[in-house]
């Protein structure tokens, strides 16, 4: 859920634009460099953006309420790295504002800050941390999505509380109000998004291990998916004339991952998600 158009006073709107600008500019630099070095990656980056857009349009089951969409920023950060996600997320938010009137133009800065900056960075940080601590890929991915989703909404609450402090309780009072209305109801949603992300990554580990490896997500070893040299810009296919992203079996990974890549992280909530027969 994004802050709607016209919701923030002008001063706040401008302040949030200023706050997210450095991150977006950093992302734009990275992206421009990436495109200059690998001209083909324009299409892949576009595809990544479209993927994030579509991901955030999926309807989550089981959560009541009209706005039960995942943010997709956790998975995006894991796959494409936060700087790139800052740009892709901004593009996504712009489209959502212009095409669907979700969010808005004057509130774009605030929404970018919560969804394309804080969410991805928090999620990505947790993801690296979890991996470094030896967590399984599934656990790390769950944490990334969960944290990214939740932090996005926490930031949104803070933004609203700053704009509309409680007449009596002040900022903290308002934070409590907005927090309970938005962030707290988001906890089940964040859990759902975490679960969904695990399911998606697990399926991808079986079907597109090659692509994931190229994006720097190691599906092979169950533990400690390498701290291997961060190639930073995830989207690099050694695309030579035409072969593009042809099916690349990346055979090293697929078989090792096998059936139980995990999802024990969520078995208590989603009964039987692990029952996918082979």
């Amino acid at each position, binding site marked *: 859920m994004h802050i709607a158009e016209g919701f923030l006073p002008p001063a706040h709107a401008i302040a949030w634009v200023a706050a997210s600008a450095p991150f977006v500019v950093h992302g734009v630099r990275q992206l421009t460099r990436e495109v200059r070095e690998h001209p083909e990656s324009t299409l892949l980056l576009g595809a990544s953006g479209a993927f994030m857009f579509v991901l955030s349009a999926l309807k989550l089951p089981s959560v009541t309420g009209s706005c039960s969409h995942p943010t997709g920023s956790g998975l995006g950060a894991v796959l494409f790295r936060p700087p790139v996600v800052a740009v892709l997320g901004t593009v996504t938010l712009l489209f959502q504002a212009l095409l669907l009137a979700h969010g808005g133009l004057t509130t774009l800065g605030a929404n970018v800050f919560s969804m394309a900056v804080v969410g991805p960075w928090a999620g990505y940080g947790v993801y690296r941390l979890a991996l470094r601590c030896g967590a399984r890929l599934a656990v790390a991915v769950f944490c990334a999505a969960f944290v990214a989703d939740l932090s996005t909404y926490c930031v949104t609450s803070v933004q609203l509380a700053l704009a509309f402090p409680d007449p009596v309780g002040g900022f903290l009072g308002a934070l409590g109000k907005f927090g309970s209305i938005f962030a707290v109801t988001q906890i089940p949603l964040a859990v759902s998004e975490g679960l969904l992300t695990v399911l998606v990554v697990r*399926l991808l580990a*079986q*079907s*597109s291990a090659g692509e994931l490896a190229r994006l720097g997500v190691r599906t092979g070893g169950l533990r400690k998916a390498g701290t291997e040299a961060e190639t930073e810009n995830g989207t690099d296919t050694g695309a030579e004339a035409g072969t593009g992203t042809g*099916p690349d*079996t990346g055979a090293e990974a*697929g078989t090792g991952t096998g059936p139980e890549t995990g999802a024990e992280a969520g078995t208590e909530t989603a009964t039987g998600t692990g*029952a*996918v*027969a*082979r």
Partner: protein
Amino acid sequence: MNGSSATPGGGAAPADGRATPGGGAPTPLVALRDVSFGYEDGPRVLDGLGFEVHEGRALALLGRNGSGKTTLMRLLTGGLRPRSGRVELEGRPVSYDRAGLTRLRSAVQLVVQDPDDQLFAASVAQDVSFGPLNLGLPEEEVRARVDEALAALDITGLGERPTHLLSYGQRKRAAVAGAVAMRPRVLVLDEPTAGLDPDGQERLLATLEALRRGGTTVMMATHDVDLALRWADDVALLTPTGVRAGPAGELLARAEALREAGLRMPWGVAVGAVLRGRDGGAGAGFVPRTAEELARWAAEEGRA
């Protein structure tokens, strides 16, 4: 008995008077009754449409691009809900609650045109198991159904292969297997032969024939009039004014019906007419279904 009833607008209710075991008008397996449908913020696609699928009859659905074939199939299989009118399964109206949809969907299965829209699991066997698992069947039964469906489509060896590494023809078969594993009474296929080479088309038709012998009623949408004439017992022509249905040989020979539906004349019909006209008797009534059949027949005639 005709494959599908005529619509109010369509006219033409042919009667080929096939006797049914019980006598009288048989209940269609699935039917649309006076169904109207339009997509959100679009015009009506179907308007007051009547349509019937009868047990055991191979039915081909023909019509222009955008005439609503896919939409009609979605309505038949519960993927879309009519704005007005109703869908009947064995004479009983379908309700759109969970139980009703489950009843409809375990009886009528749709294979969409692009196999990639249907294959989403990581391996073929996993994908095929999706439907039976959703039926709540025990694991053993699921396994049995998967094996059966893979065998029926002749792709037993592909079970463990990732779906996106398969060729187009193989993906097409895997998609059909996913529907077959639900053991539907009616299998509905949207342009199943599009993109397949002649060999592949031949093999798919043979598979459908085997399924029909096994008791499944098969219906398909196609743009290929020659294929429709060859394969179908009945055809239904979808036009802006409604649907026009009848036995394939009869309806596909009517020039004005073909024109209305924007179709070409099938070769078999033209050849049949030539043979009839020319020797007034020797070839009369012979409508070849394939060029090969015609060549064989000519060779035999020549010898005789």
